């Protein structure tokens, strides 16, 4: 399973406000904040190792996902944005690049609108969190009204890579149940979006690349294009043979895309 085996030696814990925040610190190079999606129980070791070749990666474990309980005051992606800004403050990171996937992209947008000057650029894969369509149709299919099998077909490019729940042990299943509960809290209503974001994204003048997996069953190309139009300085890239969980389906290609973009910015991130 791609979530087996956390990076050993790289896991740290920091008290941020009232929360004990676990995060991975790995690699060397320019600082990169990596924000994972809601569907796995921890940022994948493989993805972090690949990113660590080019960057000094900071990858928090989202509170309420995996093994950590959800603090009772957290109700929105905004709360995570403030937590991770505080994490960057505590680590003395004034200027970072952000890479996010799905929920991670949503949190990244919430961080970006608050203090865009802290960030050199963004790669936001499988970006959720914004609604651009009409009130009469969901922009994103209702993940709470479909079977695990149906959802997996939308999340992954290759059905053979879908984790089999029958093979998970009890601890893993409890962690997945915890994930689902926390993600439900963040995404239930309004469904999978923050209605304020379209009015705030104009602040994000830093370069943004939105990445969509060609096989993503949750986000259409036109949805991602419409999100791109809300950002002053953005473009859209498609990654072949990848579904919504881009970092799981194509860790190497995704890592290369991040490195390529971050190292070639107009104001390139400074080398370590």
């Amino acid at each position, binding site marked *: 399973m791609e979530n087996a085996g956390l990076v050993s030696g790289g896991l740290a814990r920091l008290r941020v406000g009232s929360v004990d925040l676990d995060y991975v610190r790995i690699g060397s190079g320019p600082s990169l904040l990596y924000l994972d999606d809601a569907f796995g129980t921890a940022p994948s070791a493989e993805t972090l190792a690949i990113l660590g070749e080019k960057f000094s990666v900071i990858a928090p474990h989202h509170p309420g996902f995996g093994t950590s309980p959800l603090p*009772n005051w957290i109700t929105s992606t905004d709360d995570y944005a403030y937590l991770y800004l505080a994490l960057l403050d505590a680590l003395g990171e004034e200027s970072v690049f952000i890479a996010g996937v799905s929920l991670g992209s949503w949190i990244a947008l919430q961080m970006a609108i608050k203090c865009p000057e802290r960030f050199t650029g963004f790669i936001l894969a499988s970006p959720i969190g914004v609604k651009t369509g009409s009130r009469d149709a969901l922009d994103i299919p209702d993940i*709470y*009204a*479909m*079977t*695990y099998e149906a959802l997996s077909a939308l999340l992954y490019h290759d059905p053979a890579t879908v984790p089999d*729940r*029958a093979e*998970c042990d*009890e601890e893993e*299943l*409890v*962690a*997945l*149940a*915890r994930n*689902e*509960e*926390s*993600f*439900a*809290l963040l995404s*239930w*209503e309004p469904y999978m979006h923050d209605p304020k974001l379209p009015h705030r994204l104009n602040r994000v003048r830093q370069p943004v690349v939105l990445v969509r997996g060609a096989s993503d069953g949750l986000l259409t190309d036109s949805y991602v294009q419409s999100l791109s139009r809300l950002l002053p300085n953005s473009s859209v890239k498609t990654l072949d043979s990848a579904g919504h969980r881009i970092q799981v389906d194509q860790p190497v290609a995704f890592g290369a895309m991040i490195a390529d973009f971050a190292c070639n910015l107009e104001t390139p991130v400074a080398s370590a």
Partner: protein
Amino acid sequence: MKAFYFTEAAYPYLPPETEYESVRVTMPNRIFDPKVGADLYHRFMDEWLLADDEGLNVMVNEHHQTPTCLNASGPITLAVLARETRNARLLILGNPISNRDQPLRVAEEMAMIDCFSRGRLECGFVKGVPYEIAAANRVPVRLNDRLWEAHDLIVKAWTQHDGPFSFEGKFFHHRMVNVWPRPYQQPHPPVWIATLSAQSAEEAGRRGYVVATFLAGYKDTPKIWQGYQRGWEAGGRTGPCPLDRLAYTAMIYTGETDAEGRAGAEKLLWYLAQNKVPEYFKNPPGYLAPQARGAIMRTQPLGYRMRMQNKVPNLDEEIANGAVFCGSPDTVYKQIKTFYDKVGGMGNLLLMGQAGLMEHEETVRGIKLFAREVYPRLKELGVQGQHLDLSVAA
């Protein structure tokens, strides 16, 4: 013992199960013929009124987006009953206050019912079954917190009489609460909490409310009673709780003969059988704690829920479980008495006496036979002063 007659008031004329994904939430309402539905509303009301005439109390519940229960608003049905019944206590089990938007609206509705009925309301509050989540679009996380905050606001609204108060909770905010009318019963109508969980039973016990459980059977009922007792004592009371704090729901059909009783009960099993619902409606994230949901993900259903999982119910099994009491009046009495003794007693019996395709005449016969031949004997049990038998092993 007090008995309450109840039906879920279903629209039973459905296509074969193979033709739909889910009986709840997504069944298209083109299946509902309004002329047939109107007749059903009146027929079920006639049966409730008959129950009142026969000396039984009555109970209604509420469900949404489902043909299994046409009472999309319990208070509306209750309002008709408040006007049309004479003596029956009127139990709503219950107001789904975790899901409803405005607890104050519930406070007003219940105060109105209590006044209309001149103090006959028994007011139930429930978290609601998991398939109500999709219909209410209520985020399924922290529902217990939401339920108790709604409850606190409702009770405060009923019991504050000196003008407006403010309330700024986690879920509900008001600056000016001043509910008219106030309830007929003082300080407020009796509160019931329906649950299958010992923990919620404990919350009910702490407050001295009535706890009602549903088809929990021989196996789970003692645990719920013990949970209630723990709360009862934690609330500063000593000794076993009075039996009038405990309510048990069963499917009950009384015939002239055992065969007739069983035939009626077979029809009641429709309620268990007609529950084709996909996992994502039965088990929304956060409705149960991660430990419990994790177990379900491995397809290990918990206890009572197993009977709700597309399993063809078997009458003898359900009788053995304690979910069904049926037969001749003597048989029904004996089954209830056996259950009563085994679980430590209960002071309230809630009868699901109609379900599915059971027609009016058969329902009426069952109500009358129960009321005339069984209920008088049950009145000896669970009377004022009798207490939970704590010697019964959980």
